[in-house]
């Protein structure tokens, strides 16, 4: 029995860190620009597709491919921010509609370029760790540890780097930040780029495990959405705690019942949270 519970916890934590990777960018974008980015899942998909093309089709080293995918997607994100989202800063509804348009356009682009089929790629890491009955595939473990490292780096960046601090300042009060000499525009573009890069890394890391297809971003986007609403829109600690909670809750439901039941549970949780406490666990007052 305890074995069973341990397995649930291990699975939950391993998917939780990937949710956090997605949710951090999602919540960063909301915090700084007040935009709910429905295209976030498509940035994950773009990252995974780039890894497919670079690593599986062109034989570039997997780790290099993930890094390249992150950089390219980050550039794409910064461009999207500059030209498509900048006019909508603080007009939440129109920004959200814009993000939907971008999401659909990116999906369509991927469909046209890659086709609708799921495409597999060779796994760079294989085998599983058997820890007295507790089974953890090495690739999941690797993804989990790498994600953890990136989350730590991201945290240090926000806390100790001047630009990271500027991002937090904008999230608190953009006008005051701008008066203090923060260049709101370029910092926003950079933040969006980082958020896009994080999503692309998540996509690139999961690509060998789940394969690649144009619609692959929808589910991770839903998960990030659940995590961020639970933790509080715009809150970084909220995204981390929320990601772990959702990972664990889902892992439990998926083991005891099925994955649809797990999704129903997490969305019901979202409905409840928004109804009772819209700012989530750690968000600012609405």
């Amino acid at each position, binding site marked *: 029995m305890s074995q069973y519970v341990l397995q649930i916890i291990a699975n939950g934590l391993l998917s939780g860190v990937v949710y956090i990777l997605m949710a951090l960018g999602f919540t960063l974008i909301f915090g700084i620009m*007040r935009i709910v980015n429905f295209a976030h899942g498509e940035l994950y998909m773009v990252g995974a597709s780039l890894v497919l093309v670079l690593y599986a089709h062109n034989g570039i080293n997997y780790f290099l491919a993930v890094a390249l995918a992150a950089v390219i997607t980050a550039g794409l994100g910064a461009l999207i921010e500059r030209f498509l989202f900048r006019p909508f800063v603080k007009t939440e*509804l129109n920004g959200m509609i814009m993000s939907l348009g971008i999401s*659909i*356009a990116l*999906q369509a682009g991927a469909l046209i370029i890659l086709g609708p089929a799921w495409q597999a790629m060779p796994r760079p890491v294989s085998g599983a760790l058997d820890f007295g009955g507790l089974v953890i595939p090495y690739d999941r473990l690797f993804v989990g540890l790498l994600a953890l490292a990136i989350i730590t780096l991201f945290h240090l960046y926000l806390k100790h780097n001047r630009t990271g601090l500027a991002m937090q300042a904008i999230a608190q009060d953009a006008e005051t930040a701008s008066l203090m000499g923060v260049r709101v525009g370029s910092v926003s573009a950079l933040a969006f780029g980082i958020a896009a890069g994080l999503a692309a890394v998540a996509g690139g890391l999961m690509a060998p495990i789940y394969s690649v297809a144009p619609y692959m971003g929808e589910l991770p986007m839903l998960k990030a959405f659940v995590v961020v*609403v639970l933790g509080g829109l715009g809150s970084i600690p909220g995204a981390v705690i929320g990601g772990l909670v959702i990972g664990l809750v889902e892992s439990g439901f998926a083991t005891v019942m099925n994955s649809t039941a797990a999704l*129903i549970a997490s969305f019901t949780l979202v*409905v409840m949270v928004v109804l009772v406490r819209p700012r989530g666990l750690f968000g600012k007052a609405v």
Partner: protein
Amino acid sequence: MRQTATLLVLAVVSAVPILVGDRYLAHIAVMVCLMGIMALSMNLMLKVGQLSLAQVVFMATGAYGSALMSMEWGLPPVVTIAVAGIASGLLAIVLGPFLLRIRGVYFVLLTFALAQVVNLILQDWVSLTGGNSGLFNIPRLELFGIRMARPETLYPVALSLFALAFAVTFILDRTRGGWAMYSIEENEDLSRALGVDVTAWRVWTFGLSGLMAGMAGGLYAHLIGFLSPDAFTFHAISVSILVINVVGGVRSPLGPVVGALLLVPLPEVLRDAHQYQLLVYGLLLIVFIAFFRSGITGFLFDSSHVPATRLSRLRQLMRIK
């Protein structure tokens, strides 16, 4: 003037499928009507300042409710569509006071999550809904002794419902009620202070929009004869009716009508190229929200786009229609 002209053109266009009598054309025309009703139901909510992604929930309630009542209890579809539509409206009125307290972006997230829950339940509650394989052999609509298995015969019914939904929205737009709605959208606190019962207006509007969506769903169930959760997803319904509203324009009740007429036939035209349809939807959303925020009807009707005479300038300043 331009509105009257647009209405006349629409009336002529709506007669075309009847005159031509082509089955395929009639099918597209019925879908224009159904999606048009859905778009109007979203438009009503936008008029009270809330973007609701839950209209698909009421459509699904209407569709599954009507289909199940006619299959399980053998009731005629005419009755079940009406009952399921009214039930959907009531559901909206019951949920309204809870959901509509939440504003702005949080309301969008709330209704988005709710729609996800409902769709997942449709997938998971296999004994009731048939799960992902869906419900088959749903009885066809029968009216005045005519069995409406074909879109040609169903089209007049769908068109009448669409016209009715439009008329209701149009009348609301032109009467004190409409002004109350706009005032809620523009300045909630002020309209509260002026004595508008904001909450009641929101809840009743939600109820009306739920009724419309429920009826559209019921009609859809008996038109297609087959229901599955695929037809009630975020992308299939919510995104489409949002694109219709944005492209058509949200201010005028003609907006969703024009939008539906232009956009719903698109998937049929690009039948073998789903990806290009998606691309067109995405690009339209981006271009319209960036450059033509008032949509086609806004561009057509809004006096600020025509050379301003002194009188129209004055009207604009005084905000007189």
